[in-house]
């Protein structure tokens, strides 16, 4: 059906509004991070900077532990994403390709992990980790992040496994492929979009996780960005330039990671289409 002029205009307007809603806050943060302090808090906000300075970035990188927070967040988020993808794929295979007793019940119970608000299980988890000697370790954060990302990731995997016909694996087996070879050369390329989606989900969840990171980590050197940044800001006084510079730098890895994984996402789709 051909779209009329009015329809096209409405569509463009809608897209413009959506783009503004998503992009304007990012622009406000990025552009303000290079303004002089006085301009940042000026009574009449400037949408395009009238001043230019990198002093907030210099201060952030030179006087705070932001680089350490950044490194910690990166390590924790990457490990959490990798482990979540591996476990969700294996669990997905088990749930959707293997026959075993209680499969449906266990599959449904996986989501019980989301039944309790995080704050309720915070103290029990703290005590458990204290007994295991995991308090103040990045390992603790990886375990928590994977635990919370995994159930939803397994559910996401269902859609992707459902789209794969059993015949593909049977054909590979007839051609003499081992289980590993079938997984490596048949399943993984076709599950690429699913794995990429899970990776993005797990990475972003870990990158932004605050509650557990603020309680399980004690020393400054092991803090992640959300917790470290909230400390840099302070309670009674806010250095807005520092906050904006920190916020600008902290969104970079998410954008880069999405761009990187997104490439595989598209590639996976294409390969799937050829199959």
């Amino acid at each position: 059906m051909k779209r009329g002029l009015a329809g096209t205009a409405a569509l463009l307007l809608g897209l413009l509004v959506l783009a503004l809603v998503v992009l304007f806050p990012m622009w406000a943060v990025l552009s303000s991070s290079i303004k002089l302090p006085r301009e940042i808090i000026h009574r009449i906000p400037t949408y395009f900077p009238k001043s230019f300075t990198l002093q907030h970035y210099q201060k952030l990188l030179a006087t705070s532990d932001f680089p350490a927070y950044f490194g910690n967040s990166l390590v924790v988020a990457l490990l959490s994403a990798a482990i979540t993808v591996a476990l969700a794929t294996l669990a997905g295979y088990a749930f959707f390709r293997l026959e075993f007793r209680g499969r449906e019940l266990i599959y449904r119970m996986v989501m019980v992990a989301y039944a309790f608000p995080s704050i309720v299980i915070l103290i029990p988890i703290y005590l458990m980790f204290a007994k295991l000697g995991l308090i103040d370790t990045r390992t603790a954060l990886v375990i928590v992040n994977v635990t919370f990302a995994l159930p939803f990731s397994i559910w996401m995997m269902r859609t992707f496994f459902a789209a794969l016909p059993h015949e593909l694996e049977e054909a590979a087996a007839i051609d003499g492929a081992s289980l590993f070879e079938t997984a490596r050369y048949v399943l993984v390329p076709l599950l690429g979009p699913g794995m990429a989606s899970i990776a993005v989900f797990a990475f972003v969840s870990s990158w932004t996780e605050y509650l557990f990171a603020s309680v399980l980590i004690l020393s400054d050197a092991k803090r992640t960005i959300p917790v470290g940044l909230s400390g840099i800001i302070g309670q009674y006084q806010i250095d807005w330039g520092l906050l904006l510079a920190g916020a600008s730098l902290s969104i970079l890895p998410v954008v880069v990671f999405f761009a990187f994984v997104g490439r595989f996402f598209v590639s996976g789709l294409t390969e799937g289409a050829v199959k």
Partner: protein
Amino acid sequence: MSLKPTLLAGALALAGAFGAAPSYAQTEVKLWHMEQPPHRVARIQELIDAFNAANPDIKVVQEPQSWDQVYAKVPAAIAAGNPPDMLFAIPDFTTVVRKVDQLESVADFVKELDAEHGFVPAAVEPYSYDGGVWAVPLYNMALSLWYNKKMLDDAGVAPPKTWSEWKAAAQTLSKDGIVGVGLPANKQLYTDQTTYAVMVNNGASDLFNADGSIAFDNEKTVGAYDFYKDLYQYSSPDAANWTWGEAEACFSSETCAMILQFTVISTYDAQGGGDAANLGVAPVPHADDQADSSTIAYSNGVMFLSKDPAKREASKKFIRFLLQPDNYGKFLTMEPGLFLPVTKDGAAAGTFWSDPLVVKYKSQVEQMIKNADRGMLFGFTGGHVFPAIGAISAQNMLAETLQKVVINGSDAATAVKEGAAAMTEATK
């Protein structure tokens, strides 16, 4: 040939070989504080380094924490058996910690420090209850009325001293995009503080009766809430959700003519132009029938959580070091113009008054110290301290009541009655 020289030479050689190794056991002491901004952490580290260098048998390490999480984190750490040895606290937090751990009173230590440095009595009082003293006061913070002198001068308005003057000033100043007075109004700590600052200036400072029952529901409290609501009409439309940072930004950008804050000095200096002559500070105005102004003041202190005698002694040694006037001045100026002295000799410390920001804003800092002298804290007044205040404070009940009055439009008398009932329930 005597063996003695040979043995002596051998002993010396061994001593030389192992001379670098310490001949004493080192006691490590862990400090948790909530002064997280990098410059504060750096200043505390500077003092720790000086202490550790002078006391090689002790190693103090700091682990900065967040106020947002410390109320959950400390009980969890105590339960897990790995609490800090020293913990910075405010009065109501000591009641929370005492609930989850058997603490030893530091009354004798406070007495010893008082004899040497002379504590401001109002700083010790909130920590003195249940027959003990539960923290050593370290620094004070008091809410003041900050105003832009030029804006007031241009409008022909004098700094307000009474509520009627305050309202008239806010009304006159509220024009051409200027906000007469920036006040918050939602359920959070900043609103608790501004609300109590108004309450104490109407003689409604006591939340508890002498028998521990709630004294919140009274005419004076209702009057304070009514006045706050009346004044709020001259606040910014988006002010309800403000915390300290937004209020400071409003003031420093010359949008707000007046705000209630502990300090604005460092933000005003770094982000607001820094004209010291234009920065005014005064006591929070009082009700017309009250004789003088008062305010809300927080005496911050340090608690000793360690049960190990060696660690406790090492902690005391560190605090003795910190309260030496020279060190204390450096400690207070980790955030110049925010943290005020709680000892008499600390108030005269050269290192405090020689800080560049304190030099620049000397008259303002002097006024802040004067305002702090008449400071009070809810739940810690009238010579009675009831640990139940921890529950009231943790749930921001003063602010919750204010939100009902200002935002939800409830009648002040009804909201205060409901607030009193909620407080009674929370403290059961």
